[in-house]
């Protein structure tokens, strides 16, 4: 009991610390000062009166949403004395694997850089800056020569690394038993089994209404759809993040989705946010990064060739180029097993004072990265809002799909979950595929890494991502391929 209390107070302290530096705090303070003018605020009961005022004016809700948001993202501290690496990833062998994978990526990037004699970053000459500014809304028309650039890595390279992961403390023994895992992933991580999944995903049960199933043409809307839409509108009116997250587990109506996601991710387009985005845009105009070419190449190879997303090509550049330069993204490395790659100013290799993170946001794009953004273009049309939503989705969910960690939503666990489910419940299929040399994970891996973007029709994809937001977990991605593979 004592442990729980001290944990709780630790969490509270950390959240308060975090929120104190945020814009919301400043706004609350301003509101509190302004409220002193109001007649209902009396000096004797100042604290209660102000609290009451916050409740009525909706500011308390905003604070609640902010706290809820922090809790969703914040990993709970396991032990007050745990070093920061443990927050990133508690298992040593995983950390090591991630570290060596990062070294490989960086090496590949550096060698491409040397081969092509292109600097990692350079300042653009004024003429070029002007040109880019003019073309900002149609960067897709640019056709730079990208033939020499290769994506730094593709999902299949990453899969090879995961296949070779081993826990040095675990001895499997040579004898095959019914417990032997026949899949590619050979690390002993705990994943949920069907009864646990059933409990976790209780709202997806057969007896509960779902959008995407119970709103099809044969089902009269009075049974489920109408009521569900009405509740959705109410949730939006209340502006309650936690309620929205609970609501969206049954799927979101098309018309309400954009607002619901913004509410759950606690994104509201404040002037500061728009200004921040404009600042990032200026950074893009002024400096050219090598990763920009990688982004261009990726967009041209994937999203531009997609039947549904090719229209949004220009938005993708506007989001991804700014994303690369956003140093606030570095914050998520506190709970990401990955670490941002470091680079050194020319000539000062090894000197820490001259080390910079490269790219500035610490995320090196891989083949297919732009597909994380593409489906969002269906919902958000204002570049700065689209940007915020994507950034938040990345630092909450997507980063887990391409870093090695033991987290239940990490890609390793997802692969293991998928293979276990398949082996347990469709053993004949699993065995057959193995026999013909087509390990099922090799097929479904790329689906999961991209969170199914580009592999599912957009309406279905958005319903899937509704559940990711609703359950704050990526485990549903492992469940999905099970129905597609057969």
């Amino acid at each position, binding site marked *: 009991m004592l442990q729980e209390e001290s944990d709780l107070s630790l969490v509270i302290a950390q959240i308060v610390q975090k929120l104190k530096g945020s814009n919301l705090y400043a706004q609350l303070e301003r509101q509190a000062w302004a409220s002193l003018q109001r007649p209902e605020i009396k000096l004797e009961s100042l604290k209660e009166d102000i609290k009451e005022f916050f409740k009525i004016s909706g500011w308390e809700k905003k604070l609640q949403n902010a706290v809820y948001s922090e809790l969703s993202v914040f990993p709970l501290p396991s032990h007050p004395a745990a070093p920061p690496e443990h927050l990133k990833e508690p298992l040593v062998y995983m950390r090591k694997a991630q570290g060596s994978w990062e070294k490989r990526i960086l090496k590949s990037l550096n060698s491409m850089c040397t081969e092509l004699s292109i600097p990692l970053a350079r300042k653009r000459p004024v003429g070029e800056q002007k040109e880019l500014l003019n073309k900002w809304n149609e960067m897709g028309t640019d056709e730079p020569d990208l033939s020499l650039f290769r994506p730094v890595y593709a999902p299949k390279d990453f899969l090879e690394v995961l296949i070779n992961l081993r826990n040095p403390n675990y001895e499997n023994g040579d004898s095959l038993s019914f417990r032997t895992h026949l899949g590619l992933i050979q690390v002993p991580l705990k994943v949920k089994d069907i009864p646990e999944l059933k409990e976790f995903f209780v709202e997806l049960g057969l007896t509960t209404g779902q959008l995407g199933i119970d709103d099809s043409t044969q089902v009269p809307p009075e049974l489920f759809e109408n009521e569900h839409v009405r509740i959705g509108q109410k949730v939006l009116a209340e502006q309650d993040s936690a309620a929205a997250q609970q609501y969206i587990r049954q799927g979101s109506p098309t018309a309400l*989705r954009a607002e619901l996601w913004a509410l759950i991710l606690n994104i509201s387009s404040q002037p500061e946010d728009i200004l921040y985005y404009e600042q990032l845009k200026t950074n893009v105009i002024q400096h050219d990064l090598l990763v920009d070419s990688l982004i261009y190449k990726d967009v041209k190879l994937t999203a531009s060739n997609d039947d549904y997303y090719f229209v949004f090509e220009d938005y993708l550049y506007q989001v991804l180029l700014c994303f690369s330069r956003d140093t606030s993204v570095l914050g998520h490395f506190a709970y990401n097993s990955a670490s941002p790659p470091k680079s050194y100013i020319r000539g000062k290799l090894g000197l820490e004072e001259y080390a910079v993170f490269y790219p500035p946001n610490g995320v090196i794009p891989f083949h297919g990265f732009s597909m994380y953004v593409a489906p969002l273009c269906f919902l958000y049309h204002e570049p700065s809002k689209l940007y915020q939503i994507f950034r938040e989705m990345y630092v909450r969910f997507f980063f887990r799909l391409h870093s090695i960690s033991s987290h239940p939503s990490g890609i390793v666990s997802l692969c293991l979950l998928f293979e276990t489910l398949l082996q347990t419940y469709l053993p004949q299929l699993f065995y057959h595929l193995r026999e013909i040399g087509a390990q099922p994970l090799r097929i479904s891996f790329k689906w999961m890494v991209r969170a199914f973007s580009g592999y599912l029709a957009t309406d279905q994809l958005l319903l899937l991502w509704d559940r990711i937001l609703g359950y704050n977990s990526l485990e549903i991605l492992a469940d999905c391929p099970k129905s597609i593979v057969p």
Partner: protein
Amino acid sequence: MSRPKNQNYKGHGLSKGKEREQRASIRFKTTLVNTLMDVLRHRPGWVEVKDEGDWDFYWCDVSWLRENFDHTYMDEHVRISHFRNHYELTRKNYMVKNLKRFRKQLEREAGKLEAAKCDFFPKTFEMPCEYHLFVEEFRKNPGITWIMKPVARSQGKGIFLFRRLKDIMDWRKGTAGKKLTSSEAQPARSAVNPPGGHDARSSEDQKDEIPVENYVAQRYIENPYLIGGRKFDLRVYVLVMSYIPLRAWLYRDGFARFSNTRFTLSSIDDQYVHLTNVAVQKTSPDYHPKKGCKWMIQRFRQYLASKHGPEAVETLFSDMDNIFIRSLQSVQKVIISDKHCFELYGYDILIDQDLKPWLLEVNASPSLTASSQEDYELKTCLLEDTLHVVDMEARLTGREKRVGGFDLMWNDGPVSREEGAPDLSGMGNFVTNTHLGCVNDRKKQLRQLFRSLQSQKKASS
């Protein structure tokens, strides 16, 4: 031969009182290849007839029709894929005339409000005969953009935009007096001259003068709805089985064709920006064949719903229904309604930023070539369902409101989504039986339909 009349619901005219003959095999002929050929060849019981053999079904092209229809005898069961004078609807200048006349009639009979429902066609003037009227309109609205389109060509050929009268002066000097090739010439004079038709007039024009290619000048829609900064238009398929009475079906699938480049009014000379025909896009330097440039209309409908809400989308789509029906009504009295004929039209619709749909044109021979796998699926399913509705195999009862992906949109009156008699008063909870851009579970529906038809047949035999 008497026909049992159902007072409440009119059948869509396929079966008469006497059972139609079930033919052992159906001989088809067509000059087209790709999707149509695949569909026809795979249809059970259909055999291809080559060269001069007799046929039961002919998917012809319009030039054959022009030359041979009048001297071809067809048995009662024979079907052909065009109406004799379809050009009343599909040639831009005729369509405009018919629509203007219909609008006037509506105004006389039902008032201005009703007539305003025909305002889905941008102001158009036929050149060169309406040149003066055009100049008057041009002067009233200085600075707007106009588009010049040849009346009878397709695939975006010969189209250009202009803002100044000077631009067309030059064009006039250039093309006046040019001889047309025989394939571009106006339709040959036919023996049958329906009242109000245009054949008599055109044959007079042809008498002494050198044939000049006819153009129309149309007000260019400067505020098109853009997605991803790109302009697009919608291709929708409407199947007309007869004009008198008017029976039309609407296909649930269709697609949005995107321009490859971003839309901006400043680049009037850039032909690629403004024209969204795939044919023109294919020549643009930006064009990558993999891209496809097309969205299925379901995707488009969803996109709009997530941006503007379902009510706005409902309104837009019912405005589009209005376009289809009124355009067909405007040529109803003029087109020779031969019972052998049916026609699959491709409607081109442009949406502007206020979510108002505009009719660009109607195609009598919409392209059936597939530009991608998805496109191939769409077109083969479309053609299969067209053949189901034409019903050479005499399987349907004639009371169906839906066949595969086709919904009966107009059956001598509006068709209601609900069961039972159509609500002709036009008030109350009338919802039209159209599902453009909605789920197309055609396979399932066809299975159920044919199964129930079979059991009905067994029961009655």
